[in-house]
């Protein structure tokens, strides 16, 4: 039995479909801009936001049921709808489940919004709302584990497919750029004053972004040539610090090793790593140490945070969706914002698109609370 990725969607500052986003990543576009909105933050700041007018336009087109929804709910519903439209999967089947990844969900509902049930501030209520919208009969599982939520949700989906109950899992994730999140990261002094520069010598912090993404996973006994398969996944904790990564990259190394163990693939068979690459000094140094410790320093590494910003609960999903397209096209995407190397251990960071046969790729994520996740993808 294998688990394959059958469809995806990405809604971000760089477009409303996986294809549009992939083309923009390929051409080195960045969605990070100066935002001047006193409701979001008292001073101007940088973030990669979704085009509001286009979101509303698409929403009116799609939402035939005329359900009053929050901005995040619109993004999630549009994302699932588009990913689903490319398949014949029945979302109302009891053999299909939805898994939601988010860090803060409808956190903007801490201030009441007219015609929206304030209970949808609760993440399970948000999940339930999405499930009801699509008439799905199963409980919507909600994963909320800081910035590894997306990768963890994909790993969880694969685990659910190994059980007996489901044939398809729809993994959807999303987070917004809100006053709550912007103020929080500002207070941590972790936002860059320029668009973020992953793995660069002069990097000085992250840029926030907002996005929703969907990946549809399917159980199959007969994977076909060219299918991208879930091969292995794991998480681990640094057990070191709640808001800073480990100096030895302990948790990340364990997560990668366990993911490789599950996949039965040796470290030297990996072709490319899509890192977390937030562009904070500590995160990127930590990842360089993890990659070096596993003897993978010769592999091309990239990060999409310079294009999309850090999209929190969506990050693992949209970055994996882009990595899957990258594998199909045998093309490694550029790292926008990277110019000069400057991490503790040397890395080969891709500045420009790079053609290379991609059979096996590694996706990394790390987050507050000392959590780390790894995911191994394999092309049949």
């Amino acid at each position, binding site marked *: 039995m294998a688990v394959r990725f059958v469809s995806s969607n990405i809604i971000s500052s760089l477009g409303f479909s996986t294809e549009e986003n992939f083309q923009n990543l390929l051409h080195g576009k960045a969605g990070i801009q100066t935002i001047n909105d006193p409701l979001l933050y008292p001073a101007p700041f940088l973030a990669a936001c979704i085009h509001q007018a286009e979101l509303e336009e698409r929403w009116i087109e799609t939402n035939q049921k005329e359900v009053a929804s929050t901005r995040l709910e619109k993004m999630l519903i549009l994302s699932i709808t588009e990913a689903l439209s490319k398949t014949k999967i029945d979302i109302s089947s009891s053999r299909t489940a939805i898994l939601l990844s988010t860090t803060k969900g409808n956190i903007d509902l801490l201030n009441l919004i007219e015609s929206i049930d304030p209970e949808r501030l609760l993440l399970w209520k948000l999940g339930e709302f999405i499930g009801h919208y699509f008439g799905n009969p199963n*409980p919507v599982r909600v994963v909320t*584990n800081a910035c590894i939520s997306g990768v963890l949700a994909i790993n969880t989906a694969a685990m659910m497919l190994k059980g007996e109950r489901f044939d398809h899992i729809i993994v959807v994730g999303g987070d917004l750029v809100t006053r*709550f999140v912007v103020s929080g990261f500002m*207070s941590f002094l972790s936002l860059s004053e320029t668009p973020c520069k992953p793995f660069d010598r002069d990097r000085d912090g992250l840029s926030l972004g907002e996005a929703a993404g969907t990946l549809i996973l399917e159980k199959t006994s007969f994977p076909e040539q060219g299918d991208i398969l879930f091969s292995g996944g794991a*998480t681990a*904790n640094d057990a070191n610090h709640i808001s800073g990564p480990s100096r030895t990259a302990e948790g990340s190394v364990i997560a990668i090793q366990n993911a490789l163990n599950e996949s039965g693939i040796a470290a030297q068979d990996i072709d490319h790593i899509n890192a977390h690459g937030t562009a904070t000094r500590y995160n990127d140094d930590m990842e360089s140490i993890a990659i070096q410790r596993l003897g993978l320093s010769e592999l091309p590494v990239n990060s999409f945070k310079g294009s999309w910003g850090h999209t929190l609960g969506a990050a693992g999903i949209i970055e994996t969706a882009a990595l899957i397209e990258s594998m199909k096209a045998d093309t490694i995407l550029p790292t926008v914002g990277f110019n000069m190397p400057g991490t503790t251990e040397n890395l080969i960071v891709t500045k420009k698109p790079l053609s290379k046969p991609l059979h096996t790729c590694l996706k990394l994520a790390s987050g507050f609370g000392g959590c780390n996740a790894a995911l191994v993808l394999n092309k049949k």
Partner: protein
Amino acid sequence: MTPQITAFCHIKKNQVFLNGKRIFSTGPEVDMREFVKAAFRNTGTKYPKFFKMDDYSKLGFLAAEVLMKEVGESTIEAKSTGIVFSNRHSTLTTDQLFQDSIQSDDAFFPSPSVFVYTLPNIMAGEIAIRHHFTGENAFFVSSAFDPDWHTFYINQLFESKKISACLSGWVEMDDQSLEAFVYFVEKRKNQQNESMQHTVEELNNLYKINDK
């Protein structure tokens, strides 16, 4: 071989229970947050960082402390011990606290030491540091404690050999009340027949054991 529950702890209504027996309580007049601090002092553990945590992390940390004194850390493999929790309100009480500090531009004082606790897995991070658990982590949100999901998820982690033990349970808090049901589950070679299996039925029983 089904993994086995080797100890469990309930905290609710100003009482702490270990393996179903009450080991600490205060009168109902004591504020629930003060009760958690008093119960922690009662464990005898000196850990000043505890008092800097948010109320939600304090609750989970306390339950883990009570439980791990019973389990005995020398008997487990900390490197492959996971932490899997769930709850209903995520970190809503701390979210509200942070929101109050940014609500208006005139009184705008966001604090990183509050913001960091607006993620529920920070509690798992605090426990991981204290007990050196570097295994799998996951945090789920559901409307109520779901033994079906916990047993499925954790037993699969054992099955795939990603963990040798796991701290798991339900740690829930809102403005009005708090509740923790935390248990330790292990897969050992010399398992005893009479011990508690990590099954839906057993977990349901244990969860409700102090309801009477």
